[in-house]
């Protein structure tokens, strides 16, 4: 996978600017989004979710203005030229004139970057906005367009939209655009490369870590001991709940758990959520217990 290296302090500052005008709020937003991005990679079954999240931010940072070197990454060779975006913007503006509504550059680029399919869909977006705004007498601002056109767009923002947008409007407040579609667009590219270039169980970056991953570094006796200690630390009711929840006759799991929910005057979903939270705290406890014995889980 093409690696964009470490992020420089300048890159990071640009990212923060991209996320918003207030540095503190942007930092908080960055931390939150990084955690969510890592979680997203985790759910895709990736081995190094945090590293892949870093890679996404690095790539975005490289696309933000102020970087003299053009992107030579062959993976991002622009099959979609910025021109495509502006053609779409022109189509939108023409349609807006026909409909006698005003589309700001922000709104036009916002729509153009999210619709890939065809002219009819682009025009459909303008028609929808025009109808909606005339009905309630609202001005078509970016947040308004985002709200009205929710669910209307193709799945992801083209990453080239960032470059193209900034070329055309170098002094714009870029943070007006929602970062999530951009992040997702980049994240999917990184994921595609990850799946393409990583054999399922190869770990080329650090063979020692690979061995540690495959071989259980914690002896079964220690894990069993830690599990028991951590179970003992739970509240009596919670411990009983966990044990009962997992003790059922084959083929009778659902009936068993429904009966448990009834007996506790609760719902099945509430019990499932509770067990999931208990399992999570149990895992953290066992991890800490193993670490205390010098074993890394």
């Amino acid at each position, binding site marked *: 996978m093409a690696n964009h290296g470490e992020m420089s302090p300048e890159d990071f500052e640009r990212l923060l600017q991209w996320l918003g005008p207030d540095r503190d709020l942007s930092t908080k937003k960055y931390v939150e989004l990084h955690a969510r991005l890592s979680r997203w990679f985790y*759910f895709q079954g990736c081995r190094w979710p945090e590293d892949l999240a870093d890679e996404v931010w690095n790539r975005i940072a490289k696309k933000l203005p102020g970087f003299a070197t053009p992107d030579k990454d062959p993976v991002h060779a622009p099959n979609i030229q910025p021109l495509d975006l502006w053609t779409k913007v022109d189509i939108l503006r023409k349609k807006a004139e026909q409909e006698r509504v005003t589309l700001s550059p922000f709104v036009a680029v916002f729509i153009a970057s999210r619709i890939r399919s065809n002219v009819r869909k682009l025009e459909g977006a303008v028609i929808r906005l025009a109808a909606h705004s005339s009905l309630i007498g609202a001005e078509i601002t970016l947040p308004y367009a985002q709200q009205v056109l929710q669910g209307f767009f193709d799945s992801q923002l083209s990453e080239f939209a960032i470059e193209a947008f900034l070329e055309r409007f170098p002094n714009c407040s870029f943070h007006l655009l929602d970062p999530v579609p951009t992040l997702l667009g980049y994240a999917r590219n990184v994921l595609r490369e990850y799946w393409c270039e990583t*054999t399922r169980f190869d770990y080329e970056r650090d063979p020692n870590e690979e061995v540690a991953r495959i071989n259980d570094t914690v002896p079964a006796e220690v894990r069993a001991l830690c599990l028991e200690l951590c179970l003992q630390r739970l509240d009596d009711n919670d411990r009983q709940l966990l044990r009962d929840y997992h003790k059922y006759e084959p083929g009778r799991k659902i009936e068993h758990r429904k009966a448990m929910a009834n007996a506790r005057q609760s719902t099945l979903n509430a019990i499932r959520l509770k067990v999931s939270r208990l399992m999570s705290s149990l895992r953290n406890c066992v991890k800490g217990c193993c670490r205390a014995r010098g074993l890394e889980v």
Partner: protein
Amino acid sequence: MADERPRRPLKSLNQEWNTEPDTPSERTLRDYLLGWATPQSDAIDATILADGASPMLDVIEDELIEEYITGEMSDADRPRFERRFLSSKQRLEKIRLSAMLLGRRDVAEGLSQRVASLRQEPRGT
């Protein structure tokens, strides 16, 4: 990356668990975690980034792990599960601990061997 799930006579999880027909459904979340293509995958992706992952994803992840350990998982889902869950150290640890809790120490102890054997399988299988 994400294939269409083959049709199989499996009762909807929402029916089995008698839950409200939430959006997305539990079946969809389950398929999402296993990497099957679902019409709502894009929406789930966006939700995880915009609002954080739903707690139901954690619930369903735990239940998939349980199904794998107890052998209740279907033949169609099992390779997908192994591909997505046995490649992550964090998830391997989850499986080991759940196996101990379920009294299946044999599964916990055999996991490393399973990962090693999957490693030998040709790429793309």
